[in-house]
């Protein structure tokens, strides 16, 4: 083989190995398979509040991890529930958020997350009643939080009794709590949101599984210029 041929073989082999390494590292860095991005930027007139509706379910009931807890979002274009936790939102816009909470709860590991923080008015509505603090040692406890750490936004999702809904999306007839609150998006950027309740059943301290995999109990707010 000529010198050039040998050089080409070495180069191709090197690129193949390097490609495999990069692919492997990328797979490690991106746990789970991120879903799509649900676009909320074109659902209303500029400057008007965006309506964002999600539901929390105790078990998703389908896919690779049917027993995992998860959020679903109502697609503003189709009206269907999507299993996507990345949402594109307009910047500097009020987001009117509705959460249908179908999951059970327990006392919070850190009761700090029982306090509504970062919403407009620092309060939220639970089944039509305003509240600022929820004592998770009462009632059915708190199942999850919807929190955007970079915005200091956190709202406790009050639990329901048992887990009456086993397959998502849950029907409105199933027992659930409805929570509403509003917050304002900041300037353009990517802001992660997450749950602060270690709610991954079956994982050590509830921190693995759905808590540590994209598209279940966390996602991104992709805030773009409006």
């Amino acid at each position, binding site marked *: 083989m000529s010198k050039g041929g040998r050089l080409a073989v070495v180069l191709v082999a090197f690129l193949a190995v390097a490609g495999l390494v990069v692919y492997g590292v990328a797979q490690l860095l991106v746990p789970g398979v991120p879903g799509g991005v649900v676009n909320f930027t074109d659902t209303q007139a500029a400057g008007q509040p965006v309506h964002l509706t999600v539901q929390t379910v105790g078990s998703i009931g389908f896919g690779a991890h049917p027993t995992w807890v998860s959020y679903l979002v109502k697609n503003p274009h189709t009206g269907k529930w999507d299993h996507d936790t990345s949402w594109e939102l307009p910047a500097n816009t009020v987001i009117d958020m509705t959460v249908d909470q179908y999951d059970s709860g327990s006392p919070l590991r*850190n009761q700090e997350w029982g306090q509504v923080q970062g919403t407009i008015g620092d309060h939220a509505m639970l089944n039509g009643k305003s509240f600022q603090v929820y004592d998770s040692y009462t009632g059915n406890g708190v199942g999850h939080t919807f929190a955007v750490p970079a915005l200091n936004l956190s709202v406790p999702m009050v639990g329901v009794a048992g887990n009456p809904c086993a397959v998502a999306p849950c029907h409105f007839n199933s027992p659930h709590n409805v929570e509403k609150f509003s917050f304002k998006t900041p300037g353009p950027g990517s802001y992660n949101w997450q749950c602060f309740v270690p709610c991954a*059943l079956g994982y050590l301290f509830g921190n693995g599984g759905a808590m540590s995999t994209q598209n279940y109990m966390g996602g991104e707010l992709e805030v773009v210029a409006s």
Partner: protein
Amino acid sequence: MSNENSQGEEINHFRRIVYIWIALSVVCDLLFWFLVGPHVPPGRMTSSAQGDQLDFNILFVIGLPVLIGVSEWLVYAAFNWNAKKKDTPESVGGPRAWGNKRVEVSWIIVTSVVVVCLAGFGIIELVALQGAGGGEGPNPIWYPHGAIQAETAALAGTGTWSPNSNDVLPVQVIAQQWKFTYRYPTFGGFESSELILPDDTAIAFNVTSLDVIHSFWAYQLEVKADANPLENNVAFTRTQQLGNFVVRCSELCGLWHGAMFNYGTVVSQAAFEKWATTTEAANAANTKNLAPFAWTYVPDANGAAGGYYPDGNVTPYSPTEIYGSKQPS
């Protein structure tokens, strides 16, 4: 290390190199010390930050002459002892340098003195700055005056702090996936997502975690302490400048580790007192639901509701204690 020039005069290369080296070193060190030194990170927001800046500057001022000396030697040798020159003298690194006891002893003495002095300086800085902003574990060896009293009172719920009191302010840093929160035991033990500190005040950071290992790193404060579950890692510093700083987690802690950061502020003592009392009142309804203040908290492997988070008997945590229980003595 000498040879004759074209006029037959003897050239002492070593002496020439030393003179150039001294001149360059003095000039560069002075320029660095006065022009660059005051701007070297992490700045001077706290005593530990200023101490670390001093350490970095000292190291640089000592290291710079070494860099200059080596570089000068290389350049000098390249110009004066290259093989293209006629009557090339023996290089100074050649056989004549072997067994030169004066050079060898001098080198050993100089380098030893530098290393020993730097070690001594480092120890003095570590002690004088009460740990230099690093986590000292639950029983710090070095602490500022009044720290033990303040920490003891904080745990008992009797701690006080007011402007100009010169009291140490205990602040608890609670790490959890994936955010730091802060408790202020001298203000009713309220918990906040904001880290606000008073200026000109000794701060006792008590760092712990509710889940995995995190690390509290406030770079501009030059405070860094690992946050371990069931451990109270104490770090001290003293604020001395107003301004904002960044807090980051410096221990890979899971999916959103990269997003685990927030900003803190050093404000005037009066502004801090106003913020603390206002927040204490605003959070009162939630503070009464918080776990009683303790240095560490027990994340119940079984879940506070019982059996929710299976532990599989593989954890050191108690299966019966719940979050908020004080540690057994």
